[in-house]
């Protein structure tokens, strides 16, 4: 036996290496674009001029580097219930992008301004395990941007209208007790399109969320403070029909693409993230990337995003159904 012929790679399934991450090697920060008004590259992807040209060409010719068309998504996989100690959780993978969302419900007190409403807080963390540049304070800016983007899309107007999560459904006793919903997103590995993935993960995590049933007994002895008995057997399913998805359209050259990888994102002139609910209503919008856009382009992007969102809904639903099927086995 010649040891050189040993091909361990095909021996044990358990020894199979994890799928390699297809990204350009760790490379130095990008150079600013030469004299063009292209946005400062947000991600630290270093690409040579030749590769950039190849990516732009692929987008113009409607055949991207991994063979996708402009408005095609990467393979989407979903897992639910991955964090047992949370009330609901989900993992969403889109290509090499992987995010986790967890929903935790805790009893709290409503604010004086909104005595008839619960509270929701959304926070995103970028783990340094995703990329070394997220270490220390490196991720702060990105985390904040993602958190704000999600809050804008999910929490609706200040009055609560158009919110994905009906805050008044979180109230237990008006003015006394309510559920505080803590939605946490975690970026596990990053290859572009983080906002869309996070929003999808949150949507799935919320459908996975069970809020314990509570029995309230108003007690005079305790100074009008309600006694709340949390059931650990009965759970109320969360209504997630109104939770939107976010579709980010990244504009490269004259065209827009969905589900951009970080390499493609580095070539963007601007990006518009539109959140669309299942009724096709727009319930949040953020423009990212600095270059100005003609108003007509923005309106066009909004209508494209609306069309694409229907496809994304179907995609997400089938992925969710597959995840449920696996969980049931």
């Amino acid at each position: 036996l010649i040891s050189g012929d040993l091909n361990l790679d095909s021996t044990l399934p358990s020894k199979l290496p994890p799928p390699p991450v297809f990204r350009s090697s760790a490379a130095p920060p990008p150079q600013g674009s030469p004299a063009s008004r292209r946005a400062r590259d947000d991600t630290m992807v270093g690409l040579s001029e030749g590769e950039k040209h190849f990516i732009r060409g692929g987008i113009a010719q409607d055949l991207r580097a991994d063979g996708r068309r402009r408005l095609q998504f990467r393979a989407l996989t979903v897992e639910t219930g991955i964090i047992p100690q949370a009330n609901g959780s989900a993992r969403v993978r889109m290509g090499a992008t992987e995010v986790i969302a967890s929903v935790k419900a805790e009893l709290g007190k409503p604010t004086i301004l909104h005595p008839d409403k619960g509270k929701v807080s959304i926070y995103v963390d970028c783990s340094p395990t995703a990329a070394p540049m997220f270490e220390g304070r490196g991720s702060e800016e990105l985390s904040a941007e993602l958190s704000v983007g999600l809050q804008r899309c999910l929490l609706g107007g200040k009055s609560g209208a158009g919110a994905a999560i009906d805050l008044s459904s979180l109230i237990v006793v008006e003015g006394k007790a309510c559920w505080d919903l803590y939605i946490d997103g975690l970026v596990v590995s990053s290859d572009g399109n983080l906002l869309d993935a996070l929003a999808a993960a949150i949507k799935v995590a919320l459908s996975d969320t069970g809020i314990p049933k509570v029995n309230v007994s108003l007690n005079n002895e305790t100074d009008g403070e309600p006694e709340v008995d949390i059931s650990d057997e009965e759970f109320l399913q969360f209504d997630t029909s109104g939770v939107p998805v976010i579709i980010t359209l990244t504009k490269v050259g004259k065209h827009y693409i969905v589900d951009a990888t970080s390499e493609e994102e580095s070539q963007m002139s601007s990006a518009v993230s539109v959140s669309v609910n299942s009724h096709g209503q727009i319930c949040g919008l953020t423009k990212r990337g600095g270059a100005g856009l003609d108003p007509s382009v923005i309106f066009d992007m909004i209508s494209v995003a609306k069309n694409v969102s229907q496809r994304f809904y179907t995609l997400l639903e089938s992925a969710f159904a597959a995840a449920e099927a696996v969980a049931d086995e």
Partner: protein
Amino acid sequence: MSAAAAAADTYSPAAEAGSKRRERREELRRHLAEDADWPRADGRSLHDCRPAFMQTGPTTAASGSAYAEFGKTKVIVSVFGPRESKKAMLYSDTGRLNCSVSYTTFATGIRGQGLENKEYSGMLHKALEGAVMLHTFPKTTVDVFALVLESGGSDLPIIISCASLALADAGIMMYDLVTSVSVSCLGKNVIIDPTSDEEAWQDGGLMVSYMPARKEITQLTLTGEWTDGKITNAVELCMDACSKLCEILRERLKDPASLASE
């Protein structure tokens, strides 16, 4: 007008009680139910902006600065630089724009922390970066510091407009002046340039930053549920207001008095 004086004049000593605020909200709701072109608390009609007072050069140390007062909202923006980027920054053939928005401790009704508002800092950066010709000052940084003296609603759009005036005052190369206007959606009505009370009870909000001469939108954010038609109308309303606001900015820059005061 000096910054200190402006602050002293408008400092509101007591935080309003929650109940009082709720009363006002009820009043607002009543107006909405009537669904007429009711006069707003400050006597404006739905599509009237507050009178804009803008001035260049309130601070002397900065390369450029501007002061803006829209009703109760008072903002001061200083621009420093371009100066050489710190060593730690990696080589770049375009300039950097460093934006920071902070609130004074007395800017809001409840005494705040006076901390930097990260969200607004990021949004200010995004609104301006498309307008500033960053490649004209490689290896250097321009700092834009905004300070909200009093928060009276539509803070961010006013900061953006004021910052672009300050950048122009500092002689930074720009494609166009950026002006920004926001609208609030209350029931069926869309009201422009909302005050903080109106913002607090809005069903949805939309902010547009616009370069009027180039007819390009540099930043657009939207919250709440909107229909297509409503978005189009609201964006057009904002763009129109932005163009008018830009005229005010232009006059301010042409104003010989402000030139002389530099």
